[in-house]
């Protein structure tokens, strides 16, 4: 496909269009892509960025993912939060202004199980308009229980869509089941989840192939589960304790990450594009001006990180450690408004 057509023709997504936008040749046109992406984002989303914060409830995990600080072989101290402790974390976030939160956990099924999550959610739903989860895959029935309790969003990354690479990085444990993980977003959608967060861990496999697989996955979900909103995240390999960088051969440059994000915005004008605190503040600020619609701020990726002084084990090193107020102020100086609360459970009680 001709690159001008790929950038400017509002034809939606096709694999052909995406490949053209991701190609090395397209990098000459990055500024044009950015201008168009910004125009589309402003039209669809206005001058707003939605802010959210994660609460890590447990860093125990039975899986052995070599890229994650929580992997079960890691000897560093583990923490899990009681419901009361998790609520205390949530209180701090609420006082900072957050109304959208993401509950995150390692695969710690014995403790962070459905009754725990349901009970925690019921306590939190008074204070927060939207609660999402980023945990291990569940069955449709389990998602239905959580949905009834008040969870309406899910984020789960396939890590890599390449089956061979997936097997390489997930040799044992429940996470070794590729298909169970792949199908989980469909199950959540069937259970009624309104927000479906996709992504792959950038660095595990070739990024262009993975982006194409990601968009095919997204396209299927959008067609089939048309009442849910798809969002894209970009977890990029970052330094962390116990993570072996020799193993990960497909790291990408900032330019390539920008190209990926712009391509997704052009092909999916209505999907959310999410930027977490894995990325540096400068990078986040610049992308906020172009096509990002949702950001975390002031994140702590260790359980108890908001309340406790002494840091427990973090999942990854947060690269942007500004406070939520600082992030909000940065957005304002760029003509953007931070939106803390976008949806209210009260509408559907």
């Amino acid at each position, binding site marked *: 496909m001709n690159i001008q057509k790929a950038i*400017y023709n509002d034809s*939606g997504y096709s694999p052909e269009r995406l490949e053209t936008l991701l190609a090395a040749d397209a990098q000459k046109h*990055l500024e*044009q892509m950015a201008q*168009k992406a910004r*125009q589309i984002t402003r039209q669809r989303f206005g001058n707003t960025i939605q802010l959210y914060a994660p609460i890590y409830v447990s860093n125990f995990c039975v899986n052995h993912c070599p890229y994650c600080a929580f992997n079960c072989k890691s000897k560093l101290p583990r923490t899990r939060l009681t419901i009361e402790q998790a609520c205390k974390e949530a209180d701090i976030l609420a006082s900072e202004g957050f109304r959208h939160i993401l509950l995150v956990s390692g695969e710690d099924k014995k403790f962070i199980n459905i009754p725990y999550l349901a009970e925690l959610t019921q306590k939190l739903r008074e204070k927060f308009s939207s609660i999402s989860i980023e945990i291990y895959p569940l069955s449709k029935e389990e998602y239905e229980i959580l949905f009834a309790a008040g969870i309406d969003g899910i984020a789960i990354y396939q890590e890599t869509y390449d089956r061979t690479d997936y097997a390489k990085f997930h040799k044992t444990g429940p996470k070794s089941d590729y298909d169970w993980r792949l199908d989980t977003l469909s199950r959540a959608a069937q259970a009624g989840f309104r927000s479906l967060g996709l992504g792959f861990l950038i660095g595990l496999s070739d990024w262009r192939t993975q982006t194409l697989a990601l968009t095919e996955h997204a396209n299927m979900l959008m067609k089939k589960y048309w009442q849910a909103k798809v969002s894209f995240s970009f977890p990029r390999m970052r330094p962390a304790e116990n993570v072996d960088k020799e193993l990960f051969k497909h790291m990408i440059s900032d330019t390539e990450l*920008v190209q990926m994000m712009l391509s997704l915005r052009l092909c999916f004008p209505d999907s959310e594009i999410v930027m977490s605190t894995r990325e540096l503040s400068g990078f986040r600020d*610049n992308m906020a001006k172009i096509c990002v619609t949702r950001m975390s701020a002031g994140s702590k990726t260790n359980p108890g990180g908001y309340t406790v002084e002494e840091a427990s084990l973090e999942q990854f090193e947060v690269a942007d450690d500004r406070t939520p107020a600082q992030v909000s102020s940065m957005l304002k100086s760029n003509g953007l408004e931070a939106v803390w609360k976008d949806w209210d459970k009260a509408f559907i009680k």
Partner: protein
Amino acid sequence: MKDKLIIAGKEFSSRLFIGTGKYSSNKIMAQSIEASGTEMVTVALRRVDIQNPQDNMLAAIDRQKYLLLPNTSGARNADEAVRLARLARAATEINWLKLEVTPDPYYLLPDPIETLKAAEILVKEGFVVLPYINADPVLAKKLQDIGTATVMPLASPIGSNQGLKTKSAIEIIISQATVPVVVDAGIGMPSHAAEAMEMGADAVLVNTAIATANDPIKMAQAFKKAVQAGKEAFEAGSAGIKNQADASSPLTGFLRD
């Protein structure tokens, strides 16, 4: 490689469907159908005129060449539509059906609620349902969810010949569709049909524009060409329109630092 139109597992080479109403004679109707190159024609069900029982339009349609698609025109609610559907199936043993529920006799606009109700019943009874609807993207998705074989959004009211008044909504329907989209009703000129195909519609259904033309046979030929042209244009892909870029400072300058 041109892709074929497939509806409920059946392949069609022609993306033009023809309605059989409003012709001045059965003979002209038959000739127009032939000229259009169509492979499927719609028919309606009405009471036999006891005073004039010989009139049999169906005899003029070669059922070896053309598939019959009975419609439920005249139905004002789901119950009536379902009854007509069952009658049609009893008559022909075909289970294909154009579902049409139009309580409003002025504009003949389709009732979304009754259409959805009827579609649900008929899909369960094994009908291949092609529902005629207003260009409502959410309704279109709901019908696809329950298993209709296509969706058929109107371009403008039946017989109005106004063309694609519902263009933006049809664009959304096409972008979200998991079944073929047939633009049906209000197509007044071959250019409207071409426009629909250029947008990505899978087929069009035309009746009034051909039947009431001065020369229906010639008009049928024109429509045939227009549908082909529109489809080919869609496949060829246009060059794209460049928007004005914002004349502000470069957004990607930060990458060069």
